[in-house]
């Protein structure tokens, strides 16, 4: 596959800004560290010098379109990796932004790096990272550069990538890929095969680390509520910080339930979790269950599709029988 360079994106964005097609560009920008890229809005060709495209551009911009299309007088340019396009479509299904106000450029993605996998080797003190053929890391501990192959430090969600195909775009840069058979449910299955006690212990261990920073919710392209029920004082379930172990669970169960059938499995929740809780395993459980019991469904694969939880058949499985075939 032809590798897309930063310059291609900058050139494209600059020309679209210049000819007035768009007045805002959503792209990645360097954050505090080289690996810590942050989503940014660029409004002039001059700004674009800060645009970054490398192995750390994981952020999914679909959600940012809700706010940015409202601010734009013409169109917003957004770069979408294949997995981002699913969120993009899902938001269109939910009428969350005006398609006419977006200029979407699909860009191929070969997977993104997971900084925690790099840090596991180098330690936390990374002073710089350069992405090229290899990912070259220098640390504060020595003058030597440590090199990584992307495939060795690829994020879990990219290792288990479900699709290299863009399901929405106005213009595609590079080559189109295909939907992929992935092993993304293997881990869910492994947990399912544990005993109830083991599962309880597993999740107790994972979820008890939750600090309720709400990063998972804030980044989630499905969590776009005008006001989250957990923040709504008029809603009987308002809960800002968990006081008990159950409230952590409650938050995550409800969150997973609210996005069930709408979650495209983009994996942003796990990427941003500062406590490294594998939150995507909750969402994938719902996706797997719905696929098993209600037929294959991929949220965002097409605009306007009807999610399993707002649909039914008269022959659906009984709630008491969903466990069948397990344990």
């Amino acid at each position, binding site marked *: 596959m032809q590798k897309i360079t930063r310059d291609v994106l900058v050139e494209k964005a600059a020309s679209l800004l210049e000819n007035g097609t768009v007045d805002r560009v959503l792209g990645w920008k360097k954050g505090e560290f080289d690996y810590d890229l942050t989503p940014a809005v660029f409004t002039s060709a001059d700004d674009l010098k800060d645009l970054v495209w490398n192995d750390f551009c994981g952020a999914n911009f679909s959600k940012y379109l809700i706010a940015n299309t409202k601010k734009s007088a013409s169109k917003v340019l957004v770069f979408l990796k294949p997995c981002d396009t699913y969120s993009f479509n899902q938001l269109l299904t939910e009428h969350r932004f005006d398609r006419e106000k977006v200029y979407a450029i699909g860009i191929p993605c070969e997977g993104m790096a997971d900084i925690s996998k790099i840090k596991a080797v180098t330690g936390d003190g990374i002073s710089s990272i350069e992405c090229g053929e290899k990912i070259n890391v220098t640390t504060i501990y020595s003058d030597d550069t440590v090199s990584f192959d992307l495939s060795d430090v690829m994020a879990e969600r990219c290792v288990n990538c479900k699709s290299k195909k863009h399901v929405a775009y106005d213009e595609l840069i590079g080559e189109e890929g295909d939907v992929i058979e992935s092993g993304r449910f293997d881990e869910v299955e492994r947990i399912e095969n544990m005993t109830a006690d083991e599962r309880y212990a597993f999740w107790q261990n994972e979820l008890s680390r939750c600090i309720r920073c709400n990063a998972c919710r804030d980044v989630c392209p499905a969590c776009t509520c005008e006001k989250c029920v957990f923040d709504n004082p008029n809603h009987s379930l308002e809960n800002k910080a968990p006081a008990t172990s159950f409230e952590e669970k409650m938050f995550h169960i409800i969150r997973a*339930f609210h996005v069930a059938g709408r979650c495209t499995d983009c994996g942003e929740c796990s990427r941003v979790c500062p406590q490294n809780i594998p939150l995507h395993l909750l969402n994938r459980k719902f996706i797997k269950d719905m696929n098993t019991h209600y037929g294959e469904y991929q949220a965002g694969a097409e605009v306007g599709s009807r999610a399993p939880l707002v649909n039914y058949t008269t022959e*659906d499985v009984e709630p008491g029988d969903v466990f069948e075939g397990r344990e």
Partner: protein
Amino acid sequence: MQVNEKKPLIVAFCCNWCSYAGADLAGNNRLSYPADVKIIRVPCSCRVNPMFVLRAFQRGADGVILCGCHPGDCHYTSGNYYTRRRMAMLFSMLDYLGIEKERTRVEWVSAAEGAKFAATMNDFAQTVAALGENKRLEDLRCKR
């Protein structure tokens, strides 16, 4: 109050048209079931938000059961079909988190099935009592 004296607490959500009437019929026929079962009336089983189920557990319920019209008989034509999907997913998730799946149940009880209502509640209360106190879900602050 001593721990071993604690009786199981069961919250039953009943749809107004079938199951609540079924519960009334059980009463008319004097078919007894444990007093641990407390019924909350909802217009349709599809009114029951998974949040209500979790809330009940959080506040110390040991079992939660939903009763609705039989599939195909919903007063609102399709409500219980949505209930079926939602609860199937919720229960599966609770099980995935290691919570005893016997603590949750959905049962279809028609307005004519007073006997089934009583039998269901007896059975469910027994199952929940056998599991003992709900330690995995409750909020410790609310413990009686």
